[in-house]
């Protein structure tokens, strides 16, 4: 919500700068951005009263001298004769109507009304709606304007629960579904209460007689409607957060005053319906409790002084909460008020000492399994639980994000399979992944299972010992013997026929219920040391990688180290990784064969073969300068 600095400062005696007001608003918890001379206020869930000029000024009164006496129409008003029925008094315990007729619609606005449109660069609508919008900006109370000539029968406020078409005054056609609080005329919805009015009874630029509705709606009746029907509504933001139930007379009298400043009023009358008394909230004065909650030591005088500035009324022994502060009910609420006035950052810290408990090893089995897998080249992944496929045990999401995420997964392996194929498409030829997660299944109630799932395919590792070995069931069984020597593990081979891939490597998976193997896990001392410092991530490339191999024959063994040093440290912006994939020492022939793999990838584009050849040739040339080495077949 946008509030002009100019409009705020004109009621502040000290004439603070925009930065000073900004600092004050932050201290009070009113988050905002500044754009030119405009505060763009963030909506908070509980302070509907502050979504207005007056609301912010009431809070700023703790720092500045504020004059909030905007002029209102003070003459006696005739009672409006209105055929109105409220069939949902709990939802709308208070409502007032104003009927007002002018002799001519003004072409130019004056004073605060004119400033409002000019300073906030707003488009005008029609005279009465413009007044209503300004009034909401100034007071925080939304009002709705009906063209009185279109209200020709009984107006009914009620709750409906049927599908009904409704065209809003914003020319949007919506179908009301579920429960909605509405105003109807001749059994036709003319206003979605607290959210948006209807086109059929809206004011136009020619409207000279208006019915102004000023209501208090329970937030529960309004909440979620604007999102449900995709309607931008500042009124609903305010009603959802709670408006002042006792402001109707003042707001409607201000409405009349604003009209009178811009047009000649021919006739005006008002009626208020109050179905329930608004009980004011009273909280006992308990300064020591406030000091205890905050951890400070202020005097009662100082405490009450802060509250008085915020508009609270101090009576003998208790504090009366003003009607515009429906969010304040308890000592803790008052403690927050005092903390805001003092400034959270000005409250001194007080040493905390939580009694230390005897430490239990919370890592346990999962930790052993994790570190075992890490040491053997497995990467941990985390997948969201939402899947498209149903199964007998799958839990259905009632309101999924889309049809591909309608169920909760019943296994982790399918997620890992997607991860594996994703990485294969990115030219990875050694993929080992695992995930440990809760899996939820339906049955009699919801059943939770803590599962470990692994998936692996391709080369065992990217080094000269493991490069030519392929991951298969035999490899994994042997591997898991180390940590689960006594468990029977059901490794599965996932057939590739139905998968969208041309790669032939065997895919092996395992999914186990951790509870079932908890007695089988033997002690495992991790080798991997996880980094203590947090690594600065380097953005990854989305472009494909490719590789080149170079195999050397070395007769002079002294040169092996030199070659390794040269190649493994070779720097080029397009070289992503280098490793030795082959090493063989032939004692009979007294020669060493050593193969290096170079992985190429650009961050900016797909590399062309000429670019790779250029680097490849440069590497060969540099390496062949080392005497005693050869590249067979070159």
């Amino acid at each position, binding site marked *: 919500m946008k509030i002009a600095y100019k409009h705020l400062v004109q009621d502040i005696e000290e004439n603070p700068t925009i930065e000073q007001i900004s600092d004050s608003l932050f201290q009070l918890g009113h988050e905002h951005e500044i754009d030119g001379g405009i505060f763009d206020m963030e909506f908070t869930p509980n302070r509907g009263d502050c979504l207005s000029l007056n609301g912010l000024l009431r809070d700023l009164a703790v720092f500045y001298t504020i004059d909030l006496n905007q002029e209102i129409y003070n003459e006696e008003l005739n009672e409006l004769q209105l055929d109105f029925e409220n069939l949902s008094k709990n939802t709308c315990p208070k409502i007032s109507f104003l009927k007002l007729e002018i002799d001519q619609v003004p072409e130019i606005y004056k004073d605060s009304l004119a400033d409002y449109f000019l300073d906030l660069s707003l488009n005008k609508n029609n005279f009465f709606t413009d007044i209503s919008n300004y009034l909401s900006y100034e007071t925080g109370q939304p009002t709705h304007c009906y063209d009185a000539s279109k209200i020709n029968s009984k107006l009914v406020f009620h709750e409906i629960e049927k599908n009904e078409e409704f065209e809003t005054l914003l020319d949007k056609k919506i179908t009301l579904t579920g429960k909605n609080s509405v105003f109807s005329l001749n059994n036709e919805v003319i206003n979605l209460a607290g959210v948006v009015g209807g086109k059929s009874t809206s004011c136009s630029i020619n409207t000279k007689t208006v019915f102004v509705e000023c209501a208090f709606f329970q937030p529960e009746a309004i909440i979620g409607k604007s999102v449900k029907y995709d309607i931008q509504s500042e009124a609903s933001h305010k009603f959802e957060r709670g408006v002042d139930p006792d402001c109707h007379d003042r707001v409607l009298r201000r409405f009349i005053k604003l009209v009178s400043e811009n047009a000649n009023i021919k006739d005006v009358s008002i009626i208020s319906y109050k179905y329930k008394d608004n009980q004011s909230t009273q909280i006992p004065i308990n300064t020591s409790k406030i000091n205890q909650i905050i951890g400070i030591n202020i005097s009662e005088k100082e405490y009450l002084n802060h509250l008085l500035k915020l508009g609270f009324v101090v009576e003998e022994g208790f504090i009366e909460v003003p009607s515009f502060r429906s969010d304040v009910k308890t000592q803790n609420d008052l403690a927050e008020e005092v903390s805001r006035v003092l400034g959270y950052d000005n409250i001194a810290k007080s040493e905390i000492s939580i009694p230390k408990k005897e430490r239990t090893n919370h890592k346990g089995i999962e930790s052993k399994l994790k570190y075992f897998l890490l040491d053997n080249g497995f990467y941990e992944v985390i997948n969201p639980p939402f899947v498209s496929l149903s199964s007998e045990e799958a839990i259905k999401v009632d309101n*999924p994000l889309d049809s591909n995420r309608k169920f909760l997964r019943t296994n982790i392996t399918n997620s890992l399979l997607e991860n594996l194929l994703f990485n294969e498409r990115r030219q990875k030829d050694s993929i080992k992944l695992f995930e440990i997660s809760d899996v939820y299944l339906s049955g009699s109630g919801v059943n939770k299972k803590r599962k470990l799932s692994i998936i692996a395919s391709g080369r065992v590792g990217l080094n000269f010992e493991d490069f030519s070995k392929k991951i298969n069931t035999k490899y994994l069984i042997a591997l898991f013997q180390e940590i689960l020597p006594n468990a029977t593990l059901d490794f599965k081979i996932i057939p590739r026929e139905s998968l969208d891939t041309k790669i032939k490597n065997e895919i092996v998976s395992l999914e186990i219920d951790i509870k079932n193997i908890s007695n089988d896990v033997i002690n495992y001392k991790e080798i991997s040391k996880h980094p203590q410092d947090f690594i*600065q991530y380097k953005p990854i490339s989305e472009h494909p990688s490719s590789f080149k191999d170079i195999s050397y024959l070395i007769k002079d063994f002294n040169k092996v180290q030199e070659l390794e040093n040269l190649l493994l440290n070779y720097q080029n912006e397009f070289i992503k990784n280098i490793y030795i994939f082959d090493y063989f020492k032939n004692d009979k022939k007294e020669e060493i064969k050593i193969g290096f793999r170079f992985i190429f990838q650009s961050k900016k584009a797909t590399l062309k073969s000429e670019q790779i050849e250029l680097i490849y040739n440069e590497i060969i040339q540099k390496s062949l300068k080392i005497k005693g080495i050869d590249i067979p077949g070159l």
Partner: protein
Amino acid sequence: MPDHKDITPPELIKDRGSLHPINHMKDSIMELLISFGFEIVDGPEIETEEFNFDMLNIKKSHPARQMHDTFYVENKSNLLRTHTSPVQIRGMLEKKPPLAFISGGKVYRKDDDATHLPMFHQVEGIYVDENVSFAQLKDLIYKIIHSLFGDDVELRFRPSYFPFTEPSAEVDILSKEGKWLEILGCGIVNPVVLDNCNIDSSAYSGLAFGLGVERIAMLKHGVTDIREFYKSNLDFLSQFK
């Protein structure tokens, strides 16, 4: 000249895997909090409205309770927890004060765009004892933030609103670029919540705080797109070892 037979083969570099950076961050935060005296409590990701909302003073009118924020399952009989706070409710129902719990794990919100994911991770803590104050909460938060981001980092407290804490605050840190970044939410436990858990709010008070793990991990690692964490891309994951 060295003997040919004694030549040392190249170093055999075994590729080590890595913990997922989010789990690593979560565990690091939990370890830190354990060192302050907190103990871990666990709870389910599928929760009831009672534990996820009612017990935490999140009224039916609160925006979080609307269908557009919360994933409901099994014909609205349950929901996917929207925060880890229900775990603490379960903990408080089981034990008597003084108590200091932390819970960490996955939470779910019906949101999916460049900056929000339908699944993310939180770590939350609660400490209930006699005379726990906002001034003590500030001390704890300073200790947490300084441990995570260094003693020199500047932080500020802003008033905020959470139904389960009163007073409530959000805490920002000042980035190297001079921008305030929101890091965590915290506050004094609303006495209604203590009473809901059969803890006498006239005798005890509590403090609570919650951190978004992805947010901290993004700042610590310099990851700018939250979605990178969940692509399971080995080029991404292999950087965190």
